[in-house]
Every structure is written in structure tokens, then in C-alpha cells.
């Protein structure tokens, strides 16, 4: 459904993405893992058209996304930091987003209900806590029944109850055959939510396969341990070839 072909991106001298090739299929959910500054966010942003790659192309439903914006109708995006205009009310924000995304008659307001956001529709954004803003971001991302979801650190800053609600929603959407791209540093969350692992390091994709296979290869039961073992193996390999 989505494919990255030889994507390179450099900010000045800094090479952030280096020959990235990646195919993503509907019905799977991908855990995007890598240390800080490894290029995860840049990869996501280039898919959203926020960052324009230096070279290479990105195909969405077999169509190039350069200079196109219609394809974003099929993407729900939850940013890492949700900052909204201070004096805007939650209700106004939802109304504005619905207006931007016209043509969605049936909106999915499940998260608004389960997070009880309808109770605070009149509250202004500057009065909200970080966690509540995160809930608003989540509710916005899931509002439009789209086939692709991009969630950048979805559970960061949420209380345990809300984390469970959000996880349930993600799993539910995944079962309905949606494509999920999730980044997180909480690997135990990803273990439950994702089916595939994409490990990025220094702008290159180091590993791309199912979680099951990674666990078998590394002989570990938990995703966190498996990733750690993977990194150690890679380092060992690198030191040998040097």
C-alpha cells in the first residue's frame, strides 16, 4: 500500500535518511523503532509530505505523493507533541478538522466518548493538561475512518486507564484491516500492538520483518530483549567486518 523507494534526506550536511527502501501492506501494523535522532520522525514526516526527500520517491496506493495532497484523506495522524492554539475550544478544533476533511459523513467518535472529551468541549486549549491534549490528538487521528494510521508516540503522557483505552482502539482498528505505523520507546506496548518491526539506525533500515521472526532469530521472548540482542549482534558483526 505504501512504498518508500531509495529515499534520501539530508538537512544540510546531516544525512538523516540513507537509501531507505520499505514496503508496507494493509492489515499489518508496523513498529518503528530506533534511538533518538535515528530518522523515525523524518520518515513519518516524509510520508505525510511535511518533509520533502532529497531523492527517491514514495508511493501511496501506487501513486507518487510528490505535489499531491489528496492521498492524505486516507491517513490519520497523531503527532508526538500536540500543541493547539491557546484560545481555541476543543469543540471548535473538532469542528474545524471535520470541515477540512469534508466528505466523511460518518465520523468515528468512539474515543471522544471513552475519553469523555464531550464533557469538556467548551474548555480552551491552554487550560488542558499535556495528557488531555494527547487524548484530543488521539481522538482527532481516529475520527475519520481512514485506512492508514500514523501514531507518533501515542501512549506518551497518558494515564494507565487511557493507555488501555487507546491500545484497545488501536487493536480494534488493526483487526479491521487497517495499516498502522507506530513509533514508541515503550517496547512492551509495541509487543502487543504491532505485527512487524522496522528498526532504523542512523538513517538506514537495519531490520524489517515480523516480530515473531525476530523473537525466534534472537531466541528471546520479549520484544525489548529481542531488540537489545539484535543491536548487540549488529554491533558484533560491525566490529568483525572492521
Amino acid at each position, binding site marked *: 500500500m505504501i512504498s518508500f523507494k531509495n529515499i534520501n534526506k539530508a538537512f544540510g550536511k546531516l544525512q538523516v535518511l540513507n537509501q531507505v527502501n520499505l514496503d508496507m501492506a494493509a492489515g499489518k501494523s508496523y513498529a518503528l523503532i530506533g534511538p533518538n535522532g535515528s530518522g523515525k520522525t523524518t520518515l513519518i*514526516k516524509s510520508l505525510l509530505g511535511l*518533509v520533502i526527500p532529497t531523492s527517491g520517491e514514495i508511493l501511496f496506493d501506487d501513486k507518487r505523493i510528490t505535489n499531491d495532497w489528496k492521498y*492524505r484523506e486516507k491517513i490519520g495522524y497523531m503527532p508526538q507533541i500536540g*500543541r*493547539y*492554539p*491557546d*484560545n481555541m475550544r476543543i469543540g471548535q478544533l473538532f469542528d474545524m478538522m471535520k470541515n477540512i*476533511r469534508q466528505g466523511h459523513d460518518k465520523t468515528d467518535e468512539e474515543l471522544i466518548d471513552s475519553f469523555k472529551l464531550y464533557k469538556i468541549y467548551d474548555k480552551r486549549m491552554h487550560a488542558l493538561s499535556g495528557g488531555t491534549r494527547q487524548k484530543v490528538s488521539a481522538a482527532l487521528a481516529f475520527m475519520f475512518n481512514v485506512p492508514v494510521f500514523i501514531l507518533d508516540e501515542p501512549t506518551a503522557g497518558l494515564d494507565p486507564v487511557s493507555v488501555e483505552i487507546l491500545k484497545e482502539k488501536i487493536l480494534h482498528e488493526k483487526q479491521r484491516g487497517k495499516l498502522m505505523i507506530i513509533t514508541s520507546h515503550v517496547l512492551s506496548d509495541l509487543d502487543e500492538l504491532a505485527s512487524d518491526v522496522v528498526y532504523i539506525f542512523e538513517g538506514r533500515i537495519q531490520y524489517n520483518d515480523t516480530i515473531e521472526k525476530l523473537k525466534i532469530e534472537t531466541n528471546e521472548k520479549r520484544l525489548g530483549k529481542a531488540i537489545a540482542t539484535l543491536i548487540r549482534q549488529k554491533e558484533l558483526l560491525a566490529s568483525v567486518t572492521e
Partner: protein
Amino acid sequence: MTRIIKYIFYDIVRTRFVLLYTVFLWVSTFALFQLDSDTSKVVLSLLNIVLMVVPLISIIFTTIHFFNSYEFIELMLAQPVNRKVIFLGEYLAVASSLCGAYVAGVGIPMLIFGANQSAVALLFTGVALTCVFVSMAFLASVLTRDKAKAIGIALLFWFYFSLLYDGILLWVVYSFSDYPLEKITLTLIAFNPVDLGRIIMLLQLDISALMGYTGAFYKDFFGSSLGILFSGSILFLWAIVPLWTALRIFIRKDL
């Protein structure tokens, strides 16, 4: 697009900064009317405030607003809309709210104490300068990713057009005072929106006689309907050109 503009407009109008700006203009106009009841004299005193304060507030507020809404702009750009729509929507929302604050602050006391043609001209000049400097602020904002740097560039724009340019112009006039400079200064004035605003206003106030032959020449030119059309369209260009340049950069920018 209208709903984007509407809600961003609501948001800006409610910020403390814009409220204070309106109150400040309101109080100064009101106070000047207390000192003198002749509208033309009040307009002349207000002119100096308008030519300095309006560009400064417009350019600084817009730059800060742009960087404060950076994440929100990013989120809107992740929606199925053209970048152009978001950018122009932001511009129209910021420009209209600042123009609204200006018109409310200066216009309401004038309506109370009696408005004449020069008052209308002052309102027009202020609105035009707001639009011009908001569009310069957008240009400063897209030129860099760093908020402090962008504010620096914005201040530089203001400093140049409000102070430096006049110095250069004076230097030119003094150095070449032996030559007929009317047409050349007229052209040079068109390169500074603040000066253009000042000349339009001074000629409205019938004090151009104090400026001697040059004043008479300007009066002849700016007083004609062609002159008004000329100055109006030059001010319009001053709003459009920086905005268009900023839009070109914004469309290709990495966020």
C-alpha cells in the same frame, strides 16, 4: 478555508496581546481628543504613533504567532489540504484580526468625537501598513527555522523601513540638493511603505504648503486620482510581493 480563518481569527482576537494593543490605541486616540478637539490635529499626532507602532506590533506579533502555531500548522498540513490554503488562511486570519484591533482602537474614538476625511485616510493607512508588515513577518518566519532568528529578521525589516531608509533618503536629498530631485524622491518613496503612508497622510492634512516646492509637486501628484491609485497600488504590491515570496518558500519547506 473560511472555517480555518474563522477559528484562528477567534483565537487571535482573544489573546491578551491583541487586546492590549486595541486598548493602547483606544486610550491614545481618546487622550489626544481630550487635548484637542480638532480632528485634523489629532490625526496628525496619531500619525506618528501609527507609523511607528503599527508596523512594529504587526511584524513582531505575527512572527511570534507563526512560531507558536508551528505544531498546529504541521498538524493541519498532515490533513488533506493544499499547503497554499493553510498558508493563506493563516495570513488572512492574522491580518484581519490585527486590522480589526487597529480599526476598533482608533476608529471607535474617532466616530465618537467626529470623523472627517483625514480620519478615514488614517484608518486606511494603518490597515494597509498592517497588511504589509504582516506579510513581511511571514517572509521572516519562513526564512529560518529558529524563532529568535526570525524575530531578529523581523525587527531588522522594521528598523530598516522605519528608521534607516529615511536616513538614506535624507542623505541622498542633501548630497544631490543642486539637482531637481522631485521625481527621483517620488520613486524612492515608493520603495518604502512607511514613507508612502506618511506622504499620503501629510497631503491629506493640508500642511504640504509647509514643504515648499516639493510639497506642491507632491500635492499635485498625490492629490490627483492617478496619484491615489498609484500610492494605493504600490502599498498593495508591498503586501503581495513579500507574501508571494514567502508562499513560494513555504510550499517547498521542510517542517
